[in-house]
C-alpha cells in the first residue's frame, strides 16, 4: 500500500530541499472529502513528485478562481458554474483535470409532499444554499429538463443548514449535494424523495483550473501536481478507511470517523465514471461539458457562447498506467 514511499531520513531531506511549492485554491475549507489532498505528511503523494502543496481555503468556487487570478494560488479547485462565469467575463483560463466527473447535486423533498419527478416542483418553494451557489445553478438544470424555469418556482436562500427549513416545512424541497443529503439523514431527516441532477444532465462537479499564463509557464509543475493528485485519489478510492482515519487529523470537519468514511465513499464514487475507468482519472467528456456550458447560456446564467474544447486540455492529465 505504501509503495514508493521512502522512509530513509537522508533521502527525505534531499527531497524536501528540492520541493517546489504549489498552492491550490480550494472552494471550501480543508474538509474530509478532500483528505487525499491533505495527507502529504503521511503519504508523500506530492513530496514524491518533488512538490510541497499548500491548500488555501475559500468560501465558494468563485473565491478559488479569484485567488488564482490574483496570483495568490496556482491551481483552483472549483466548480463548472464558477468556471463558466469567469470565462463569461473574459478571463483566460485552462481546465486541466476533471476532479469529479459525476454530478453530485440533487433536490430533496419529504416523502409526504410527493415530489418524485422534476415536474412536480412547479409552484413549489425550494431552498438553496445561497443564490451564488452551485445548488441554485444545478436546480435550474434540473428544472430545465422538466421544461420549467426559475419563474415557475420560488427559490429561497437557506444557508448551509438547508435541511432544517425542509424539516420544519418552511420549504417544499431543497437543493443539496450527495454529502449534504447523507449528513441530513444522519441528523434525523426522515423519509425523503431524491431527484438527482445527474439524471437530467450528468456534468462534472469540480475541476482543477489554472490561468493560461500558469498553464504556459508551469507545465512541468502542473504535470507533477496532477500525477501526485491522481495517486492520492487512487489511494483514497482504494483505502477509504485509512483516509477516514487520517481525515480526523487533517480535515476541519473530520471529527467523526464514521462520517468521514461515508463522505469519502461518496466522493470516491463521484471521482470515477465509465470514461475514467477507460482512460484514467481526470479525463473529460468534452461533449458533455460543452452541453453544460450551452445549457448555462440558455438558462441565462452566462451570456457568452463558450467553446470548451479551447479551454479544456487533457495534455497534463496523467495517462493510465
Amino acid at each position, binding site marked *: 500500500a505504501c509503495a514508493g514511499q521512502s522512509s530513509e531520513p537522508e533521502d527525505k531531506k534531499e527531497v524536501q530541499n528540492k520541493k517546489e511549492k504549489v498552492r491550490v485554491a480550494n472552494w471550501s475549507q480543508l474538509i474530509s472529502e478532500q483528505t487525499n489532498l491533505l495527507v502529504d505528511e503521511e503519504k508523500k503523494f506530492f513530496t514524491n513528485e518533488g512538490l510541497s502543496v499548500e491548500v488555501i481555503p475559500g468560501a465558494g468556487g*468563485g473565491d478559488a478562481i*479569484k485567488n488564482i487570478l490574483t496570483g495568490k494560488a496556482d491551481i483552483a479547485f472549483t466548480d463548472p458554474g*464558477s468556471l463558466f462565469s469567469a470565462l*463569461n467575463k473574459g478571463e483566460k483560463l485552462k481546465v486541466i483535470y476533471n476532479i469529479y466527473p459525476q454530478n453530485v447535486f440533487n433536490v430533496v423533498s419529504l416523502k409526504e409532499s410527493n415530489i418524485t419527478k422534476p415536474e412536480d416542483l412547479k409552484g413549489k418553494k425550494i431552498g438553496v444554499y*445561497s*443564490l*451564488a451557489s452551485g445548488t441554485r*445553478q444545478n436546480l435550474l438544470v434540473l428544472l430545465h429538463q422538466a421544461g420549467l424555469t426559475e419563474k415557475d418556482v420560488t427559490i429561497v*436562500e437557506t444557508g448551509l*443548514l438547508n435541511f432544517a427549513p425542509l424539516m420544519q416545512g418552511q420549504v417544499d424541497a431543497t437543493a443539496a449535494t450527495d454529502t449534504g443529503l447523507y449528513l441530513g439523514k444522519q441528523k434525523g431527516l426522515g423519509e425523503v424523495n431524491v431527484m438527482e441532477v445527474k439524471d437530467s444532465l450528468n456534468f462534472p462537479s469540480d475541476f482543477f483550473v489554472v490561468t493560461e499564463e500558469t498553464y504556459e509557464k508551469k507545465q512541468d509543475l502542473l504535470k507533477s501536481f496532477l500525477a501526485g493528485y491522481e495517486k492520492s485519489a487512487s489511494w483514497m478510492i482504494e483505502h477509504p478507511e485509512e483516509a477516514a482515519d487520517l481525515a480526523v487529523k487533517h480535515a476541519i470537519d473530520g471529527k467523526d470517523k464514521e462520517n468521514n468514511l461515508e463522505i469519502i465513499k461518496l466522493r470516491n464514487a463521484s471521482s470515477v465514471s465509465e470514461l475514467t475507468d477507460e482512460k484514467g482519472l481526470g479525463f473529460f467528456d468534452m461533449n458533455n461539458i460543452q452541453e453544460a456550458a450551452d445549457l448555462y447560456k440558455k438558462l441565462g446564467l452566462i451570456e457568452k457562447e463558450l467553446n470548451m474544447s479551447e479551454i479544456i486540455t487533457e495534455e497534463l492529465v496523467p495517462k493510465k498506467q
Partner: protein
Amino acid sequence: MKNAKLISFLLFIMLLVGWEAIAKTMSELVLPAPSVIFMTLYEGMLDGYFLPHIIRTLSEVLLGLILGSLFGFIVGILMGEITFLRKLLFPYVIASQAVPKLALAPLFILWFGFGMTSKVVITALICFFPLLENTVTAIQFTDRQKIELFRVLDATRFQTLIRLEIPAGLPSIMAGFRVAVVMSVVGAVVGEFIGGSEGLGAMIIASQGMMDTPLMFAILTLLTVIGMGLYQLVLLIEKKLLKRYTKEKLL
C-alpha cells in the same frame, strides 16, 4: 473652508485615479476600475434595476434602526437606572452581540420567516448595542450637582431621567446613534445575505454568483452612499438638538 472642500475633492479625484491605474493592471473579477463601476451604477440606476432593491434595503435599514435604537435606548435607560437589571441582563446582551448574526441567520429564518422580518430583526439587533452602552454611560455619569437639584425639586425618578439625565447625556447618546446608523446598513445587508431574493445584500450574493465584481462594487458604492446619507441626516438632527452643548469658540 472653501479651500478645504477643494482639497477634499482633489483627494477624492486622486484616489479614484490611483484606483483606476491599479485596477487596469488587474482582472476585473478582482478589482474593477472606478469607471467600470460607475458605468454599471449609472446603467443600473437608469434602467431602474437597482431601485426596488434600494427601496427594500432602505426599508429594512430604517425599520431595524428605529426598532433597534429605540429598544437599545430604553433598555439602556433601564440598565442605567437599575443596577439589578444591569447585572441581570448583561450576559444576554453580550451573547446577542458577540455571536455573529450570519451564523444565526438560519435560525432567524426559522423563527421569523424568509420575509423582511428576519432582516429587520437582525438589523435591530445590531443597532441595539451602541445605543445601549452609550445610554447606560450617559445616565450613569450625570453631573451630581444637577442630580441633587432634581432631588431637591422632588422630581420623580422618571422626571429626573427625562428632564435631566437624557438631555445632559444627549451628546453621548447621539454618538451611539451615529454608530448605530452606519451599522444598521451592514445589518440589513448581512440579513439579506441569507434568505433574501430582494435587497442589496441579495444582489451582492447574486453578483458574486455571477462573478460580476463591477456590479458588486456598484452595490457597495450604493451602500456607502446610503450610509453617508443617513449619517448626514443624523448629524443634521444632532446639530439642532445639541446647539446648546458645544464648547464655545475661543480665541
